[in-house]
């Protein structure tokens, strides 16, 4: 059974045979086994002005299951958010990350909570990978008090200070100079940590990105610019928006690496490589070749600028969750049923979090005026006598 799988996927190395034999006889508890397993990334890395990391990635059963669980959770969470938006429980704008989970999960596996991550508005899953809970996600999406930003931010403004997750930004590209600033602070404080500034292929053409990169390179800041290239900037395909869609080369003097963003192990390997590089040599660009199944946001059906065949093609051939599922099954670490049970558990977890979030109250009206400035703000509000009214509304 395993042999036929080997024959059908040409990228597997012969190493797979060895762990299989031992795994069948000693089926240890699935989530704690740390015997090393080597996997190959789907494609080799391509680099610009630097060496490429190896295609062979060290992992183990525990990590495989963590990846599977985390990505399946993110997938389920985003799909649930889709339904909530359609039910008008989530208002405003909602940009979903399903399809791109491998980037969030792989990156987190390569770094510590001392490293900073800053991203744009497609931030729900990155928030979760940094340690955010499902309740915080759904409550914030629905604008409730238990949300990570106390209900005042919404979908595009998730933050988690204690795990150095700097959000959550609506203006395209504005987070990259901020990310380089974070790297500056890390270097200044001798933190031995790096900052990952994520942006999309649309933002890659923003001038402020190149300005920030220039200064980061001059000052050797530990900044890693990660272009999550899902090939469409809203509805504009990359070949229509960029003269050079080789985003990993756009740094010119800054080295770059092109990574298969649908393969969590490739992402992990690249991020480990990039962290080492950035701490020694300054900024590096990672281009994650990834794909989003949903449209740009919930207002976009996602099918007017690309074919349904393209979307289903990617889902069938490159889906990140399926890749891990196949790896787990081919290494005989679990049965199909066990994985389905994990997914059922996840479904329940998500449903419970949604139910809890629905019960959560909206923020107090007085919260409208809090945190505009560091100290409180005196507010004028028109009442019948037009006197200055306290900053607490009925």
């Amino acid at each position, binding site marked *: 059974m395993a042999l036929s799988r080997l024959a059908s996927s040409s990228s597997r190395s012969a190493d797979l045979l060895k762990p299989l034999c031992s795994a069948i006889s000693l089926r240890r508890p699935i989530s704690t086994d740390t015997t090393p397993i080597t996997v190959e990334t789907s494609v080799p890395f391509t680099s610009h002005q630097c060496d490429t990391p190896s295609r062979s990635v060290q992992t183990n059963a525990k990590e495989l299951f963590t990846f599977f669980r985390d990505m399946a959770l993110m997938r389920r969470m985003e799909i649930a958010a889709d339904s909530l938006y359609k039910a008008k429980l989530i208002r405003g704008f909602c940009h979903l990350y399903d399809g791109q989970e491998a980037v969030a999960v792989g990156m987190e596996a390569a770094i510590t909570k001392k490293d900073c991550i800053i991203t744009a508005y497609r931030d729900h899953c990155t928030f979760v990978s940094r340690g955010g809970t499902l309740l915080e996600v759904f409550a914030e999406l629905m604008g409730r008090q238990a949300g990570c930003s106390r209900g*005042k931010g919404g979908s595009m*403004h998730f933050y988690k200070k204690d795990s150095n997750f700097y959000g959550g930004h609506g203006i395209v590209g504005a987070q990259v100079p901020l990310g380089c600033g974070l790297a500056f602070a890390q270097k200044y404080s001798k933190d031995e940590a790096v900052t990952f500034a994520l942006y999309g292929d649309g933002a890659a053409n923003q001038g402020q990105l190149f300005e920030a990169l220039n200064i980061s390179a001059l000052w050797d800041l530990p900044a890693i610019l990660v272009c999550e290239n899902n090939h469409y900037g809203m509805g504009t395909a990359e070949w229509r928006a960029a003269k050079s869609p080789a985003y990993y080369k756009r740094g010119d003097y800054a080295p770059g690496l092109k990574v298969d963003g649908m393969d969590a192990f490739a992402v992990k390997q690249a991020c480990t490589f990039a962290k080492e590089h950035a701490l020694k040599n300054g900024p590096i660009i990672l281009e994650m070749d990834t794909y989003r199944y949903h449209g740009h946001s919930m207002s976009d059906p996602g099918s007017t600028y690309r074919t349904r065949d393209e979307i289903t093609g990617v889902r069938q051939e490159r889906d990140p969750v399926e890749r891990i599922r196949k790896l787990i099954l081919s290494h005989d670490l679990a049965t199909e049923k066990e994985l389905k049970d994990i997914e059922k558990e996840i479904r329940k977890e998500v449903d419970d979090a949604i139910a809890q979030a629905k019960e959560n109250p909206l923020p107090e009206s007085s919260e*409208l005026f809090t945190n505009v400035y560091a100290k409180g703000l005196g*507010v004028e509000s*028109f009442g019948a006598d037009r006197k200055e009214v306290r900053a607490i509304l009925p």
Partner: protein
Amino acid sequence: MGNRAIAEIQFADYIYPAFDQIVNEAAKFRYRSGNQFNCGGLTIRAPYGAVGHGGHYHSQSPEAFFCHVPGIKVVIPRSPRQAKGLLLSCIRDPNPVVFFEPKWLYRLAVEEVPEHDYMLPLSEAEVIRQGSDITLVGWGAQLSVMEQACNEAEKDGISCELIDLKTLLPWDKETVEASVRKTGRVLISHEAPVTGGFGAEISASIVERCFLRLEAPVARVCGLDTPFPLVFEPFYMPTKNKILDAIKATVNY
């Protein structure tokens, strides 16, 4: 006439990266080159204003920033028919114009719009409702809210005159002044935060011109001085009831 450039900024909230080019280049080119060069009658269209669920970056009203720049014009239509006439005037105007379109009206407004070519004059305010007790000044989608407040005030015997400013820069001071001389009271309403909003300019100018005629202080019913909120939008907005309260307070001053 040649061809005209018409730029679109998808949401006015995203216009700030272009702010330098608009303020320092487009607005000043004709002036600093002694009329040798100009920006070719550039028109910039941007949807602005609240939409009910837009949050921080899909609801802003940045008109006040641009009203502070001599050299450009700022125009805001209140309805589809106005939008067509004003936009054609903006395009054919040889000066750079920033044209803010109330996005709330994109899906809400229903009106008969003539198919032929027609232009509406810039820098001319329009009295869209005659009255004698108080003058209300506004623009864009806020006018429909003010209209509702006027209807309610009518029931209490207060006759309101409603003026659509249409062009904010350069604005029609004469029409507003004439109306205030008639009524003696003025109320300005806009979605942008009250501090530094364009209502402040209107208020100062009217007081300069009509001080002795005024029966009550100039009232401003505007957005609050906070970033445009997400869930708190109903509290932030200058709603009909806030306007109605202010009308009554001004009339009974």
